[in-house]
């Protein structure tokens, strides 16, 4: 009968658990793939003067509040509420345009990480990811 050293179990199991946890948490903390490299969208700056943000791409974490319009074959306009890093800060709703190419199904209350492009005054979603 082979005897495994009990110390192996005592140290091995926690290590395995830690590895699994790190494997799950680290990717999330890293900002979600390529979105993690983008600057967070500043809604107040957009409201103040959208022209200064034109052409830029931003990351927006948001929660869907309402679908304002949907045009078949073109896309939809959603009213979303940005999720701030600092929960004490709240921001008002902003409209974003999700082209039909972005696909996906949207429900009120869902949270997304979006890659936004400020095209003229329009906030166009180039990529998104639920979280």
């Amino acid at each position, binding site marked *: 009968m082979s005897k495994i050293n009990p110390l192996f179990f005592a140290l091995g199991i926690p290590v395995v658990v830690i590895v699994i946890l790190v494997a799950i948490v680290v990717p999330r903390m890293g900002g979600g793939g390529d979105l993690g490299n983008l600057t967070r969208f500043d809604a107040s700056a*957009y*409201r103040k*003067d*959208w*022209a*200064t*943000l*034109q*052409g830029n791409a931003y990351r927006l974490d948001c929660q869907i509040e309402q679908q*304002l*319009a*949907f*045009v078949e074959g*073109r*896309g*939809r*306009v959603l*009213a979303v509420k940005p999720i701030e890093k600092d929960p004490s800060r709240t921001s*008002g*709703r*902003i*409209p974003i*345009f999700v*082209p039909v190419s972005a696909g996906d199904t949207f429900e009120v209350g869902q949270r997304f990480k979006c890659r936004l492009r400020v*095209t*003229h*005054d*329009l*906030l*166009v979603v180039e990529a998104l990811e639920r979280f």
Partner: protein
Amino acid sequence: MRHIILSCFGWCALTVIGFAQAPPPGAAVSGGGGGDYKSSSAEGGADRIFNVNSDTVDVENGTMQWKGTTMNLGNSRAVRARFERYLASPPDAGDLKRYIAMLDQIQQLLSPGNITQDNYYRNQQEAFNLLFKAAEFDVDASNCLTIATQVQKVWSMKTEFRQIEVTKNNLETLRKHQESIIVNRADMIEEANDARSSAATKAKPLGKASTGTTELAFKVKDEARTQAEILAKNAEMTAIGLKAKIEFQSQMVAFLMARRYRHSIITSAFYRVLFKGGSQNIVVGAKEVKEFFPISDFVPTLESFDMLSREAMKDVSKGMLTVDDLVKQGELYSAFERLQETFFLGEFEPVVMAYPQDKKREMLELWKDLRELQRLGDEHDLASVEGYVNKVRGRARDFPGAAILSKVNNAINASNMSLLSAKSAALTGDMTKAESALARATKIWPQNPGVKQFADQVVGRQDTLAQKVPEFDRMLTEAKWREIYNKKLEFALALAQDKERSEKLRKVVNRVGELDANIQKASVLASQNNPYLAWDVIVEIYKTESDDLVLAKTRSDIAPLVANYAQLIGRAEKLEKDGSEAAALTAWLSAQDLNPVSPACEAAVKRLAKSVAEGAARKLSQPTPTPPSASAGDEIAVPPAKK
């Protein structure tokens, strides 16, 4: 007098309101329970044939109906004057009790129970003598002397009658003597004729036929003359008797009609004693007396006169008791009514003449107030009637003023309604109808202050018309809706005939009215802590009525309460105007966050969202413009240099 309904109220109070709903003259209007006082004889047998319900005094016509018979009291002015004089005059001097006792004694002396064969002349003489004593009293007004004179004439007639009787007897004796002579002479002639006839038969020719016939003829003639004289004396006696009877009965009726009841009774008593049974039938006044007794085959007698007189005296006596009782109860108006009717029935009755002056004075004051009230009524001075009714009420608490005031108010309302009708007709240009309605209003209430105002308006309307039309046109051109609205009534009156301008005025009034309603709505919302909704209302109406000062003021009042909201909306509108629909949508969403229930925000969001969704492809295909540099954006624009 029982159940006499005084028409004082008829000519006084009801005349006040007669122009509105005038009742028929003499209409029974019972005041203060006036009709409830019945005499003790009401249940008497006499009342069964009397139409007591017809008793009434009509001062306007100067007549009085008593027991169904109309008595003429003289013309109305004289009647009023007589009653007023009675109220103002002091009571007649003298011992009335003694006077009445004296008259009673005269009646007693002549009553059938006291007259016998023995005292026939003595009682007449005593009663005759008492007439002179009674005539000394003021209240008698020497009417007893009239009776005495009448009695004296009958006595003289009787003396004359006796002389004629003697003469007639003498003539009769003479006639009989003449008759015997005639017979004697005729016999003698017949004998002579017979003797001559027998002699002629003895072959002697006839000579002279007869002698003495001429004398006989003269004697016959004398006898016939005497016979005629006797007949003449008989006729003379009959004429004298009839004349005395008629004169006496005439005096009796005159006293009754003059309401000198006691004198009528005494005259009747003397008549009964002086004239024989065959002369007791009524010759004079039978028709008048029969009117009191509505029975077809009724035969008036002396007792009919007595009965009427005694009934009237009893009514007068009861009437005065009622007056006293009402005065004690403080019901002066009813007392006044009763006194008036009692006065007209028995003004010469001692009990009426002796009514205390202080009480009469009180009645006189009330009478004057009632006369004034009547005058106001005659002149339709409705505004003053209420004051006078209250004055009379203060004097006589039982005065039925409520009915008068009610009808006066009705008349005032009727006049005002007619005036309103006149105004409406004038506004529509129907001058005929306006004149007719105005005439009606003036007829009902000549002093209606509204009539004067209306007249002034009509007079001033022509001038106003000349001024108002250009003023309206100018304001309309300058879009001064609020000023037009503020003068809408003046313009409405002035432009009533101008249909085109009236229509324009109506539109302006509606427009400003709607604006005011919205302003009011916004003010209410603001006061209910709903400033954002109030602002929505303001913003909506401001689009069309930006020049209105009231709206501007309300807007400036609410603006501080919704500064950020207003700024967002303003910004959104500006962005949309610039073509930045997505940015405008962002601003609208922010505004909606502040005012979630705002219909304006919801509408704008829907509209812009659709527009953004539809225009997104276009924007995506356009090249992204280079954002302006920060420094350039901060630069202040320099005005172009003058060349």
